[in-house]
Protein backbone atom coordinates (compact mmCIF):
# COMPACT_ATOMS: atom_id res chain seq x y z
CA UNK A 1 0.00 0.00 0.00
CA UNK A 2 1.12 3.55 -0.74
CA UNK A 3 0.17 6.22 1.79
CA UNK A 4 0.60 9.99 1.59
CA UNK A 5 0.40 11.53 5.04
CA UNK A 6 -0.13 15.29 5.17
CA UNK A 7 2.51 15.95 2.51
CA UNK A 8 3.58 19.54 1.91
CA UNK A 9 5.86 20.55 -0.95
CA UNK A 10 6.75 23.99 -2.28
CA UNK A 11 9.08 25.15 -5.04
CA UNK A 12 10.48 28.51 -3.98
CA UNK A 13 7.55 30.52 -2.70
CA UNK A 14 5.00 28.50 -4.70
CA UNK A 15 3.24 25.87 -2.60
CA UNK A 16 2.27 22.82 -4.64
CA UNK A 17 1.17 20.19 -2.15
CA UNK A 18 -0.51 21.50 1.00
CA UNK A 19 -1.54 18.69 3.28
CA UNK A 20 -1.92 16.02 0.61
CA UNK A 21 -3.14 12.77 2.21
CA UNK A 22 -4.20 9.70 0.27
CA UNK A 23 -4.19 5.93 0.70
CA UNK A 24 -3.59 3.85 -2.43
CA UNK A 25 -4.67 0.25 -1.82
CA UNK A 26 -2.99 -2.72 -3.43
CA UNK A 27 -4.44 -4.47 -6.44
CA UNK A 28 -6.46 -1.55 -7.82
CA UNK A 29 -5.80 1.40 -10.10
CA UNK A 30 -6.08 4.76 -8.41
CA UNK A 31 -6.34 7.84 -10.59
CA UNK A 32 -5.16 11.19 -9.29
CA UNK A 33 -7.02 13.89 -11.18
CA UNK A 34 -6.24 17.55 -11.11
CA UNK A 35 -5.57 20.76 -12.98
CA UNK A 36 -2.44 21.18 -15.05
CA UNK A 37 0.37 22.38 -12.80
CA UNK A 38 -1.62 21.38 -9.74
CA UNK A 39 0.97 19.02 -8.28
CA UNK A 40 -0.13 15.61 -9.58
CA UNK A 41 3.24 14.68 -11.04
CA UNK A 42 4.95 16.13 -7.99
CA UNK A 43 2.93 13.76 -5.81
CA UNK A 44 3.84 10.83 -8.05
CA UNK A 45 7.57 11.61 -7.89
CA UNK A 46 7.43 11.50 -4.08
CA UNK A 47 6.54 7.80 -4.27
CA UNK A 48 9.89 6.87 -5.84
CA UNK A 49 11.92 9.41 -3.93
CA UNK A 50 12.64 11.67 -6.90
CA UNK A 51 11.29 14.45 -4.67
CA UNK A 52 11.18 14.64 -0.89
CA UNK A 53 8.41 16.34 1.07
CA UNK A 54 8.99 19.57 2.97
CA UNK A 55 6.67 18.18 5.64
CA UNK A 56 4.69 14.99 6.11
CA UNK A 57 5.82 11.75 4.52
CA UNK A 58 5.08 9.07 1.96
CA UNK A 59 5.04 5.38 2.87
CA UNK A 60 5.37 2.46 0.48
CA UNK A 61 4.67 -0.94 2.05
CA UNK A 62 5.37 0.58 5.45
CA UNK A 63 8.70 2.16 4.46
CA UNK A 64 8.94 5.92 4.81
CA UNK A 65 10.41 6.87 1.44
CA UNK A 66 12.24 10.03 2.44
CA UNK A 67 13.89 8.20 5.36
CA UNK A 68 15.48 5.58 3.10
CA UNK A 69 19.18 5.75 2.26
CA UNK A 70 20.37 5.19 -1.32
CA UNK A 71 20.47 1.41 -0.95
CA UNK A 72 16.98 1.44 0.53
CA UNK A 73 15.73 3.59 -2.34
CA UNK A 74 17.35 1.27 -4.85
CA UNK A 75 15.61 -1.71 -3.30
CA UNK A 76 12.28 0.14 -3.24
CA UNK A 77 12.58 1.26 -6.86
CA UNK A 78 13.14 -2.31 -7.98
CA UNK A 79 9.44 -2.90 -7.17
CA UNK A 80 8.09 0.24 -8.83
CA UNK A 81 7.79 0.97 -12.53
CA UNK A 82 7.52 4.61 -13.54
CA UNK A 83 6.03 5.60 -16.89
CA UNK A 84 7.01 9.18 -17.67
CA UNK A 85 4.81 11.71 -19.44
CA UNK A 86 7.12 11.86 -22.45
CA UNK A 87 8.44 8.31 -21.95
CA UNK A 88 11.95 9.52 -20.98
CA UNK A 89 13.63 6.87 -23.09
CA UNK A 90 17.41 7.15 -23.34
CA UNK A 91 17.69 8.41 -26.89
CA UNK A 92 21.21 7.08 -27.43
CA UNK A 93 20.00 3.49 -26.93
CA UNK A 94 17.90 1.14 -29.01
CA UNK A 95 14.39 0.28 -27.88
CA UNK A 96 15.59 -3.12 -26.75
CA UNK A 97 18.40 -1.64 -24.65
CA UNK A 98 15.98 0.84 -23.11
CA UNK A 99 13.68 -1.94 -21.98
CA UNK A 100 16.62 -4.03 -20.75
CA UNK A 101 18.12 -1.16 -18.77
CA UNK A 102 16.32 -1.82 -15.49
CA UNK A 103 16.66 -5.58 -15.89
CA UNK A 104 20.43 -5.32 -16.25
CA UNK A 105 20.51 -3.52 -12.94
CA UNK A 106 18.98 -6.61 -11.36
CA UNK A 107 21.94 -8.73 -12.54
CA UNK A 108 19.73 -11.29 -14.31
CA UNK A 109 21.20 -13.75 -16.84
CA UNK A 110 21.43 -12.28 -20.36
CA UNK A 111 18.98 -14.80 -21.80
CA UNK A 112 16.36 -13.91 -19.21
CA UNK A 113 16.92 -10.18 -19.74
CA UNK A 114 16.36 -10.58 -23.47
CA UNK A 115 13.33 -12.81 -22.98
CA UNK A 116 11.66 -10.47 -20.52
CA UNK A 117 12.36 -7.42 -22.69
CA UNK A 118 10.92 -9.16 -25.76
CA UNK A 119 7.86 -10.30 -23.78
CA UNK A 120 7.25 -6.79 -22.46
CA UNK A 121 7.51 -5.27 -25.94
CA UNK A 122 5.15 -7.93 -27.29
CA UNK A 123 2.65 -7.15 -24.53
CA UNK A 124 2.52 -3.50 -25.57
CA UNK A 125 2.27 -4.47 -29.24
CA UNK A 126 5.76 -3.37 -30.22
CA UNK A 127 7.44 -6.66 -31.00
CA UNK A 128 9.89 -6.15 -33.85
CA UNK A 129 10.98 -2.65 -32.82
CA UNK A 130 13.91 -3.87 -30.72
CA UNK A 131 16.61 -2.44 -32.96
CA UNK A 132 15.01 0.92 -33.62
CA UNK A 133 15.85 4.11 -31.73
CA UNK A 134 13.38 6.25 -29.75
CA UNK A 135 13.66 9.07 -32.29
CA UNK A 136 12.28 6.75 -34.98
CA UNK A 137 9.02 6.10 -33.07
CA UNK A 138 5.86 8.17 -32.70
CA UNK A 139 4.91 9.74 -29.35
CA UNK A 140 2.35 7.02 -28.67
CA UNK A 141 4.82 4.25 -29.48
CA UNK A 142 7.43 5.81 -27.21
CA UNK A 143 4.90 5.87 -24.37
CA UNK A 144 4.18 2.20 -24.96
CA UNK A 145 7.92 1.48 -24.82
CA UNK A 146 7.92 3.36 -21.51
CA UNK A 147 5.23 0.97 -20.26
CA UNK A 148 7.22 -2.00 -21.56
CA UNK A 149 10.28 -0.76 -19.71
CA UNK A 150 8.23 -0.55 -16.52
CA UNK A 151 6.46 -3.91 -16.78
CA UNK A 152 9.64 -5.75 -17.78
CA UNK A 153 10.72 -5.24 -14.17
CA UNK A 154 7.62 -7.18 -13.03
CA UNK A 155 6.94 -4.48 -10.47
CA UNK A 156 4.39 -4.45 -7.70
CA UNK A 157 3.39 -0.87 -8.57
CA UNK A 158 3.30 1.04 -11.84
CA UNK A 159 3.07 4.82 -11.75
CA UNK A 160 1.76 6.49 -14.91
CA UNK A 161 2.45 10.21 -15.37
CA UNK A 162 -0.08 11.69 -17.82
CA UNK A 163 -0.16 8.57 -20.01
CA UNK A 164 -2.65 9.93 -22.55
CA UNK A 165 -1.60 13.56 -22.71
CA UNK A 166 -0.74 14.69 -26.22
CA UNK A 167 -2.18 11.61 -27.90
CA UNK A 168 -5.00 11.48 -30.42
CA UNK A 169 -8.25 9.91 -29.08
CA UNK A 170 -7.66 6.55 -30.72
CA UNK A 171 -4.08 6.22 -29.46
CA UNK A 172 -5.23 7.43 -26.04
CA UNK A 173 -7.85 4.65 -25.98
CA UNK A 174 -5.15 2.16 -26.91
CA UNK A 175 -3.09 3.40 -23.96
CA UNK A 176 -6.12 2.98 -21.67
CA UNK A 177 -6.59 -0.59 -22.85
CA UNK A 178 -2.91 -1.24 -22.33
CA UNK A 179 -3.07 -0.02 -18.73
CA UNK A 180 -6.12 -2.20 -18.08
CA UNK A 181 -4.49 -5.22 -19.73
CA UNK A 182 -1.30 -4.65 -17.71
CA UNK A 183 -3.27 -4.67 -14.46
CA UNK A 184 -5.20 -7.78 -15.45
CA UNK A 185 -2.20 -9.69 -16.80
CA UNK A 186 0.32 -8.79 -14.12
CA UNK A 187 -1.91 -7.91 -11.16
CA UNK A 188 -0.01 -4.69 -10.49
CA UNK A 189 -1.23 -1.77 -8.45
CA UNK A 190 -1.53 1.27 -10.69
CA UNK A 191 -1.34 4.96 -9.91
CA UNK A 192 -2.37 7.13 -12.83
CA UNK A 193 -1.95 10.89 -12.86
CA UNK A 194 -4.06 12.61 -15.48
CA UNK A 195 -6.49 15.39 -16.27
CA UNK A 196 -8.16 13.30 -18.95
CA UNK A 197 -11.63 12.40 -17.56
CA UNK A 198 -12.35 9.82 -20.25
CA UNK A 199 -9.14 8.00 -19.41
CA UNK A 200 -9.78 8.29 -15.67
CA UNK A 201 -13.21 6.67 -16.01
CA UNK A 202 -11.79 3.95 -18.26
CA UNK A 203 -8.84 2.81 -16.15
CA UNK A 204 -9.65 3.92 -12.61
CA UNK A 205 -11.04 1.79 -9.79
CA UNK A 206 -10.76 4.80 -7.50
CA UNK A 207 -10.39 8.46 -8.34
CA UNK A 208 -8.94 11.23 -6.17
CA UNK A 209 -9.27 14.88 -7.14
CA UNK A 210 -6.26 16.99 -6.21
CA UNK A 211 -7.30 20.57 -5.66
CA UNK A 212 -5.26 23.41 -4.18
CA UNK A 213 -2.58 20.97 -3.03
CA UNK A 214 -4.85 18.54 -1.17
CA UNK A 215 -7.35 15.79 -1.95
CA UNK A 216 -10.75 17.34 -2.52
CA UNK A 217 -12.63 14.07 -2.85
CA UNK A 218 -11.72 10.42 -3.26
CA UNK A 219 -14.05 7.59 -4.21
CA UNK A 220 -15.07 5.05 -6.79
CA UNK A 221 -15.76 6.12 -10.34
CA UNK A 222 -19.51 6.17 -9.62
CA UNK A 223 -19.06 8.21 -6.45
CA UNK A 224 -17.05 10.79 -8.36
CA UNK A 225 -19.54 10.85 -11.23
CA UNK A 226 -22.37 11.50 -8.79
CA UNK A 227 -20.46 13.95 -6.60
CA UNK A 228 -22.33 17.09 -5.51
CA UNK A 229 -19.11 18.91 -4.65
CA UNK A 230 -18.99 22.06 -6.79
CA UNK A 231 -15.26 21.82 -7.41
CA UNK A 232 -15.47 18.17 -8.44
CA UNK A 233 -18.41 18.90 -10.76
CA UNK A 234 -16.55 21.82 -12.26
CA UNK A 235 -13.63 19.57 -13.06
CA UNK A 236 -15.39 16.47 -14.34
CA UNK A 237 -17.87 18.39 -16.46
CA UNK A 238 -15.38 20.96 -17.66
CA UNK A 239 -18.12 23.63 -17.59
CA UNK A 240 -16.84 27.21 -17.65
CA UNK A 241 -19.93 28.40 -15.77
CA UNK A 242 -19.16 25.89 -13.02
CA UNK A 243 -15.90 27.70 -12.39
CA UNK A 244 -17.80 30.62 -10.91
CA UNK A 245 -19.76 28.26 -8.63
CA UNK A 246 -16.55 26.66 -7.53
CA UNK A 247 -14.95 30.02 -6.95
CA UNK A 248 -17.83 31.10 -4.70
CA UNK A 249 -17.69 27.80 -2.80
CA UNK A 250 -13.95 27.87 -2.09
CA UNK A 251 -13.16 31.55 -2.26
CA UNK A 252 -10.73 31.58 -5.16
CA UNK A 253 -9.87 30.00 -8.46
CA UNK A 254 -7.86 26.83 -8.55
CA UNK A 255 -4.09 26.99 -8.75
Amino acid sequence: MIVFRDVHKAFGDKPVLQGFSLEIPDGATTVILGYSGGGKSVALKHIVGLLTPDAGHVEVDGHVVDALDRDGLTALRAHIGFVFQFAALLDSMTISDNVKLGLRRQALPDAEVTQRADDALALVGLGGTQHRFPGELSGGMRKRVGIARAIALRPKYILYDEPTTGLDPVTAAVMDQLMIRTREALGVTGVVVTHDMRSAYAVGDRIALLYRGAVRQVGTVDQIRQSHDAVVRQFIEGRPEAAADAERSVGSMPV
Partner: protein
Amino acid sequence: MLRLLTARLSTWYAGFGRLGHLLADIARGLKDLPTWPGLTAAQLRRIGVDSVPIALFIAAFTGIVLALQASYTFTGAVPLYFVGTLVGKIVMLELGPVLTGLALAGRVGANIAAELGTMRVTEQVDALETLAYDPVSYLVIPRVLAATVMFPVVVALAMAVGVASGFVTAVNLLDLSTVEFVRGLRLFYEFKDIWYGLVKATSFGLAISLIGCMKGLQVRRGAEEVGRATTQAVVVGAQMILVLDAFWAVVLL
Protein backbone atom coordinates in the same frame (compact mmCIF):
# COMPACT_ATOMS: atom_id res chain seq x y z
CA MET B 1 27.82 47.69 -6.45
CA LEU B 2 28.26 46.06 -3.05
CA ARG B 3 25.10 44.04 -3.63
CA LEU B 4 26.40 42.87 -7.00
CA LEU B 5 29.70 41.84 -5.43
CA THR B 6 27.90 40.01 -2.63
CA ALA B 7 25.69 38.21 -5.13
CA ARG B 8 28.70 37.18 -7.22
CA LEU B 9 30.59 35.91 -4.17
CA SER B 10 27.48 34.05 -3.05
CA THR B 11 27.22 32.40 -6.49
CA TRP B 12 30.89 31.34 -6.31
CA TYR B 13 30.40 30.00 -2.80
CA ALA B 14 27.33 28.02 -3.87
CA GLY B 15 29.25 26.72 -6.88
CA PHE B 16 32.04 25.37 -4.69
CA GLY B 17 29.43 23.83 -2.40
CA ARG B 18 27.84 22.00 -5.35
CA LEU B 19 31.28 20.89 -6.53
CA GLY B 20 31.97 19.49 -3.07
CA HIS B 21 28.69 17.58 -3.15
CA LEU B 22 29.47 16.23 -6.61
CA LEU B 23 32.93 15.07 -5.51
CA ALA B 24 31.40 13.32 -2.50
CA ASP B 25 28.82 11.66 -4.76
CA ILE B 26 31.61 10.55 -7.11
CA ALA B 27 33.56 9.05 -4.21
CA ARG B 28 30.44 7.15 -3.16
CA GLY B 29 29.57 6.16 -6.73
CA LEU B 30 32.98 4.62 -7.37
CA LYS B 31 31.81 1.67 -5.28
CA ASP B 32 29.09 0.98 -7.85
CA LEU B 33 31.33 -1.32 -9.88
CA PRO B 34 28.56 -3.00 -11.90
CA THR B 35 27.71 0.37 -13.49
CA TRP B 36 30.51 2.73 -14.41
CA PRO B 37 33.38 0.56 -15.71
CA GLY B 38 31.36 -0.73 -18.65
CA LEU B 39 30.30 2.77 -19.64
CA THR B 40 33.75 4.33 -19.46
CA ALA B 41 35.13 2.75 -22.65
CA ALA B 42 32.63 4.59 -24.85
CA GLN B 43 33.50 7.87 -23.14
CA LEU B 44 37.22 7.25 -23.62
CA ARG B 45 36.54 7.17 -27.34
CA ARG B 46 34.10 10.09 -27.42
CA ILE B 47 36.09 12.39 -25.16
CA GLY B 48 39.60 11.26 -26.02
CA VAL B 49 39.94 9.67 -29.43
CA ASP B 50 37.39 11.94 -31.10
CA SER B 51 39.23 15.00 -29.75
CA VAL B 52 42.54 14.06 -31.34
CA PRO B 53 41.97 15.70 -34.77
CA ILE B 54 41.18 19.18 -33.39
CA ALA B 55 44.05 18.94 -30.88
CA LEU B 56 46.54 17.96 -33.58
CA PHE B 57 45.26 20.64 -35.94
CA ILE B 58 45.86 23.31 -33.30
CA ALA B 59 49.26 21.86 -32.35
CA ALA B 60 50.47 21.69 -35.94
CA PHE B 61 49.78 25.37 -36.61
CA THR B 62 51.12 26.38 -33.20
CA GLY B 63 54.45 24.70 -34.03
CA ILE B 64 54.63 26.43 -37.40
CA VAL B 65 53.91 29.87 -35.97
CA LEU B 66 56.28 29.41 -33.02
CA ALA B 67 59.18 28.47 -35.31
CA LEU B 68 58.58 31.45 -37.60
CA GLN B 69 58.11 33.92 -34.74
CA ALA B 70 61.22 32.63 -32.95
CA SER B 71 63.26 33.08 -36.08
CA TYR B 72 61.86 36.62 -36.51
CA THR B 73 62.73 37.47 -32.92
CA PHE B 74 66.23 35.96 -32.90
CA THR B 75 67.50 37.42 -36.17
CA GLY B 76 71.10 38.47 -35.79
CA ALA B 77 71.16 38.47 -31.99
CA VAL B 78 70.56 34.86 -30.93
CA PRO B 79 71.85 31.73 -32.71
CA LEU B 80 69.13 30.29 -34.90
CA TYR B 81 69.30 26.83 -33.33
CA PHE B 82 67.52 28.37 -30.32
CA VAL B 83 64.41 28.07 -32.48
CA GLY B 84 64.41 24.39 -31.48
CA THR B 85 64.77 25.35 -27.82
CA LEU B 86 61.90 27.79 -27.92
CA VAL B 87 59.58 25.54 -29.90
CA GLY B 88 60.23 22.59 -27.58
CA LYS B 89 59.94 24.49 -24.32
CA ILE B 90 56.86 26.49 -25.21
CA VAL B 91 54.97 23.63 -26.85
CA MET B 92 55.64 21.23 -23.97
CA LEU B 93 55.36 23.62 -21.06
CA GLU B 94 52.59 25.93 -22.12
CA LEU B 95 50.93 26.03 -25.49
CA GLY B 96 50.48 22.29 -25.95
CA PRO B 97 48.53 21.77 -22.74
CA VAL B 98 46.79 25.15 -22.56
CA LEU B 99 45.66 25.57 -26.17
CA THR B 100 44.52 21.96 -26.28
CA GLY B 101 42.76 22.45 -22.94
CA LEU B 102 40.96 25.56 -24.14
CA ALA B 103 39.87 23.84 -27.34
CA LEU B 104 38.61 20.83 -25.38
CA ALA B 105 36.84 23.06 -22.87
CA GLY B 106 34.70 24.00 -25.86
CA ARG B 107 34.42 20.59 -27.41
CA VAL B 108 34.20 18.32 -24.37
CA GLY B 109 32.85 20.68 -21.69
CA ALA B 110 30.07 21.96 -23.92
CA ASN B 111 29.22 18.48 -25.12
CA ILE B 112 28.91 17.09 -21.60
CA ALA B 113 26.85 20.03 -20.30
CA ALA B 114 24.48 20.00 -23.29
CA GLU B 115 24.02 16.22 -23.19
CA LEU B 116 23.36 15.97 -19.46
CA GLY B 117 21.23 19.13 -19.49
CA THR B 118 19.06 17.71 -22.24
CA MET B 119 18.80 14.40 -20.38
CA ARG B 120 17.72 16.30 -17.28
CA VAL B 121 15.07 18.30 -19.16
CA THR B 122 13.66 15.21 -20.88
CA GLU B 123 13.53 13.31 -17.56
CA GLN B 124 16.08 10.74 -18.74
CA VAL B 125 18.07 11.35 -15.56
CA ASP B 126 14.93 10.76 -13.47
CA ALA B 127 14.25 7.63 -15.51
CA LEU B 128 17.71 6.30 -14.62
CA GLU B 129 16.96 6.89 -10.95
CA THR B 130 13.62 5.10 -11.12
CA LEU B 131 15.41 2.17 -12.76
CA ALA B 132 17.60 2.05 -9.63
CA TYR B 133 20.71 3.58 -11.23
CA ASP B 134 22.75 6.27 -9.56
CA PRO B 135 23.07 9.06 -12.18
CA VAL B 136 26.50 9.91 -10.82
CA SER B 137 27.73 6.34 -11.39
CA TYR B 138 26.01 6.10 -14.74
CA LEU B 139 26.69 9.53 -16.23
CA VAL B 140 29.30 11.47 -14.28
CA ILE B 141 32.01 8.98 -13.31
CA PRO B 142 32.56 7.57 -16.84
CA ARG B 143 32.89 11.09 -18.27
CA VAL B 144 35.16 12.43 -15.53
CA LEU B 145 37.40 9.35 -15.62
CA ALA B 146 37.60 9.38 -19.40
CA ALA B 147 38.51 13.07 -19.53
CA THR B 148 41.07 12.75 -16.74
CA VAL B 149 42.75 9.78 -18.42
CA MET B 150 42.52 10.93 -22.04
CA PHE B 151 43.42 14.63 -21.77
CA PRO B 152 47.12 13.88 -21.06
CA VAL B 153 47.15 11.36 -23.92
CA VAL B 154 45.70 13.91 -26.33
CA VAL B 155 48.07 16.60 -25.05
CA ALA B 156 51.07 14.26 -25.42
CA LEU B 157 50.14 13.74 -29.05
CA ALA B 158 49.66 17.49 -29.47
CA MET B 159 53.10 18.15 -28.00
CA ALA B 160 54.71 15.70 -30.40
CA VAL B 161 52.91 17.18 -33.41
CA GLY B 162 53.64 20.75 -32.30
CA VAL B 163 57.38 20.06 -32.01
CA ALA B 164 57.35 18.09 -35.28
CA SER B 165 55.60 20.86 -37.19
CA GLY B 166 58.04 23.40 -35.73
CA PHE B 167 60.90 21.17 -36.87
CA VAL B 168 59.51 20.80 -40.41
CA THR B 169 58.97 24.55 -40.62
CA ALA B 170 62.48 25.35 -39.34
CA VAL B 171 64.16 22.93 -41.71
CA ASN B 172 62.18 23.95 -44.78
CA LEU B 173 61.63 27.66 -44.30
CA LEU B 174 64.35 28.91 -41.95
CA ASP B 175 67.56 27.55 -43.38
CA LEU B 176 68.09 25.49 -40.22
CA SER B 177 69.49 21.95 -40.41
CA THR B 178 68.05 18.95 -38.62
CA VAL B 179 71.17 18.72 -36.46
CA GLU B 180 70.86 22.36 -35.42
CA PHE B 181 67.19 22.10 -34.59
CA VAL B 182 67.76 18.97 -32.50
CA ARG B 183 70.71 20.61 -30.79
CA GLY B 184 68.49 23.53 -29.80
CA LEU B 185 65.69 21.22 -28.76
CA ARG B 186 67.99 19.24 -26.43
CA LEU B 187 69.83 22.27 -25.07
CA PHE B 188 67.72 22.95 -21.98
CA TYR B 189 65.46 19.92 -22.24
CA GLU B 190 64.46 18.20 -19.01
CA PHE B 191 62.08 15.29 -18.63
CA LYS B 192 60.15 17.56 -16.29
CA ASP B 193 59.11 19.60 -19.36
CA ILE B 194 56.99 16.66 -20.45
CA TRP B 195 55.49 15.51 -17.18
CA TYR B 196 54.78 19.08 -16.13
CA GLY B 197 52.65 19.52 -19.24
CA LEU B 198 50.94 16.19 -18.69
CA VAL B 199 50.15 16.94 -15.05
CA LYS B 200 48.52 20.17 -16.19
CA ALA B 201 46.58 18.31 -18.88
CA THR B 202 45.30 15.80 -16.33
CA SER B 203 44.04 18.56 -14.08
CA PHE B 204 42.42 20.30 -17.08
CA GLY B 205 40.57 17.11 -18.00
CA LEU B 206 39.33 16.67 -14.47
CA ALA B 207 38.21 20.30 -14.17
CA ILE B 208 36.49 20.53 -17.57
CA SER B 209 34.56 17.29 -17.12
CA LEU B 210 33.51 18.09 -13.56
CA ILE B 211 32.29 21.55 -14.58
CA GLY B 212 30.46 20.14 -17.61
CA CYS B 213 28.72 17.49 -15.51
CA MET B 214 27.83 19.94 -12.76
CA LYS B 215 26.41 22.54 -15.13
CA GLY B 216 24.49 19.92 -17.10
CA LEU B 217 22.90 18.28 -14.08
CA GLN B 218 21.94 21.67 -12.64
CA VAL B 219 19.55 22.26 -15.53
CA ARG B 220 15.96 22.01 -14.42
CA ARG B 221 13.80 22.97 -17.36
CA GLY B 222 13.83 24.24 -20.89
CA ALA B 223 16.13 24.68 -23.84
CA GLU B 224 17.17 28.11 -22.61
CA GLU B 225 18.67 26.63 -19.43
CA VAL B 226 20.47 23.98 -21.48
CA GLY B 227 22.00 26.73 -23.61
CA ARG B 228 23.00 28.73 -20.56
CA ALA B 229 24.54 25.68 -18.89
CA THR B 230 26.52 24.90 -22.03
CA THR B 231 27.88 28.44 -22.26
CA GLN B 232 28.76 28.46 -18.56
CA ALA B 233 30.54 25.12 -18.88
CA VAL B 234 32.78 26.55 -21.59
CA VAL B 235 33.42 29.89 -19.89
CA VAL B 236 34.04 28.49 -16.41
CA GLY B 237 36.08 25.63 -17.87
CA ALA B 238 38.32 28.07 -19.76
CA GLN B 239 38.72 30.19 -16.63
CA MET B 240 39.67 27.13 -14.58
CA ILE B 241 42.30 26.16 -17.16
CA LEU B 242 44.00 29.52 -16.78
CA VAL B 243 43.77 29.39 -12.98
CA LEU B 244 45.19 25.85 -12.90
CA ASP B 245 47.90 26.88 -15.37
CA ALA B 246 49.06 29.57 -12.96
CA PHE B 247 48.66 27.23 -9.98
CA TRP B 248 50.93 24.55 -11.46
CA ALA B 249 53.50 27.18 -12.50
CA VAL B 250 53.71 28.34 -8.88
CA VAL B 251 53.74 24.84 -7.41
CA LEU B 252 55.93 22.91 -9.83
CA LEU B 253 58.37 25.35 -11.46
